């Protein structure tokens, strides 16, 4: 690609010290919780990456590193071509904060309950010294209109508890966009919303991010949301990206057994269709002190000796996406073989 990607992470990891009284004490002292382990991806300008995976697989931790709320344990983070992994300087960090914004999961928590909507939207303008008093009011009006809260003036003096979840999430989006960011992370943006308003909020986000050419990361456990919103998809499992590539390839022709299982768990909209066999057994193991080899070994239906010895590396599959599984090679499609067995 000629242009620098807006987001590039290389070997990004975040390890937490597991508290001893909470988790079983290991002989080596406190355990290490690898919330995110050696994750790499790049997102070109204006593109959108979806990150999917079960709860606890490290999606939010990844998001927080992308927003510099967490400092990575290792790896590097390039933003707009510049390495900002260890950026500490106040002014530069503030400049970054103006360019990278977050859409929160819970809109009821994301706005200060003691601020009016106007005050909440004013805050980032004050922090970044944007506009005069009159200009600020105009910007706020514009921002609310942009997210279809019309007439905007009706919402100025409202408090969050006087509004619905869908409206609040639009305000949260307006607040994110009011500083003119170039990068937006949406962490489960609609999972707390009523089903009836989800589509509206998602469509709005899609339209606005496309119009403003934002680079975006959507985090969700809902694969249909990701397939609707994102060109690229990464599947995470226990802190690792196990499959990443074009959304079409990853979700239409999944290669990693875990992705296949996730897709099998999605109920089909067609009631006549036989539900696919659910592959995964057991529960998600604890991410503390993971054994050697593939993190998915205890739940995978194809586990072999090598899976317990070596961590699978990310390799390109013949369908284009990149997969971390010993059993997936361009010449060996495990799923196809399994289907033959079933027949």
């Amino acid at each position, binding site marked *: 690609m000629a242009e620098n990607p807006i987001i590039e992470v290389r070997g990004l990891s975040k390890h937490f010290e597991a508290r001893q009284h909470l988790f079983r004490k290991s002989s080596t002292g406190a355990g290490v919780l690898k919330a995110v382990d050696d994750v790499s991806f790049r997102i070109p300008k204006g593109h959108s990456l979806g990150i999917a995976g079960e709860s606890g697989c490290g999606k939010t931790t990844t998001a927080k590193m992308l927003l510099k709320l967490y400092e990575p344990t290792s790896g590097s983070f390039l933003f707009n071509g510049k390495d900002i992994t260890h950026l500490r300087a106040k002014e530069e960090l503030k400049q970054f904060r103006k360019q990278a914004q977050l859409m929160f999961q819970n809109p009821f928590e994301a706005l200060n*309950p003691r601020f009016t909507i106007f005050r909440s939207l004013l805050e980032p303008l004050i922090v970044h*010294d944007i506009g005069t008093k009159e200009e600020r009011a105009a910007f706020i009006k514009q921002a609310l209109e942009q997210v279809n809260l019309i007439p905007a003036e009706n919402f100025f003096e409202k408090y969050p508890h006087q509004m619905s979840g869908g409206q609040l999430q639009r305000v949260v989006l307006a607040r994110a966009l009011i500083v003119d960011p170039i990068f937006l992370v949406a962490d489960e943006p609609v999972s707390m919303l009523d089903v009836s308003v989800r589509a509206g909020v998602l469509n709005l986000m899609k339209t606005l991010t496309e119009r403003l050419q934002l680079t975006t990361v959507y985090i969700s456990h809902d694969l249909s949301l990701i397939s609707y919103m994102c060109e690229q998809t990464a599947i995470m499992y226990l802190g690792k990206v196990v499959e990443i590539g074009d959304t079409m390839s990853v979700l239409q022709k999944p290669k990693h057994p875990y992705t296949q299982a996730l897709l099998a768990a999605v109920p089909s909209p067609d009631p006549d269709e036989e539900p696919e066999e659910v592959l995964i057994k057991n529960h998600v193991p604890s991410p503390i002190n993971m054994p050697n080899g593939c993190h998915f070994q205890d739940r995978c239906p194809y586990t072999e000796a090598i899976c317990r010895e070596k961590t699978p590396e990310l390799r390109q599959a013949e369908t284009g996406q990149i997969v971390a599984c010993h059993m997936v090679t361009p010449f060996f499609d495990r799923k196809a073989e399994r289907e033959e067995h079933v027949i």
Partner: protein
Amino acid sequence: MNTDVRMEQRPVQVAYRKAGFLAVLGKNLAGAFRFLKNDPFSMTGAVIYLFFILIALFAPLLAPYDPHEMIKHNGKLAFNQPPSAEHWLGTTNMGRDIFSQLVYGAKPAMMVGLTAAFFVVVVGTLVGLFAGYYKGRVDGVLMRVTDIAFGIPFEPFVIVLVAFLGPSVWNIVLAMGLLLWRDTARVIRSQVLTVRERSFVEAAKISGASDLRILFVQVAPNILPLSFLYGSLAMGWAILTEAAVSFLGFGDPAMMSWGFMLNDAYASQALSREAYWWIIPPGIFIMLTVMAGFYIGRGSEEILYPRLKNQ
């Protein structure tokens, strides 16, 4: 790029930003008054305080006599008189007008109450805010100091301090200021610990706000009502303490306080003379001020959680 164009159109206005905190504080006070209007209990408490503050301010106009004056009728000391048209609440054993003493007693009560409340709100809130927000070392040090303050028994401390520094009403206030913030600090801290985890704090961080700005602009408004509540409780508590200290004889002899009146009555055996007009009025006034504090506190839930009421 689009970003840069917009930046140029938006000139910097630093003064506006400086005004932020005061604006928020003002808004909160306005909110507190609006709230008082809606809650009958808090309204009652506020009216009681206002009533006493007015009495304290206009005591010289309201009291028919100097509270220290030994009144003589026809050259004879008018002592131990029961209530009459001339002396509404009778006179003391030294011939002083009890009603005038009662009126003048509002002044030290309000002075002690308001300054103690001020200390409690300012010190307790700041300690609680910093400890709860910064956690770690800051929290450790501040909470250790708070523990020490908790380890000191309140009334004996006031008495000892007053015994050392002299029986001035300001020393009583100082003693209370040195200790009474501790409850507020602890409660505010625990409230801050929960508030700081809410995503609007993270949102403020993402929007580039500094820690101090987050602390005072985002977090403080969510705990200020609690500070005001503890301030009003402390006001009642302080008045009660001043009365107790004066009753025990450690009060300011120049200040005619309700506690001093009770002490005087007790020492001159007013009880055995059944001179209830001397004992009951200051008792009721002390009780009213303490009650006022609790009444104001009663509505705290709704100040803290506006959604309970405004809908």
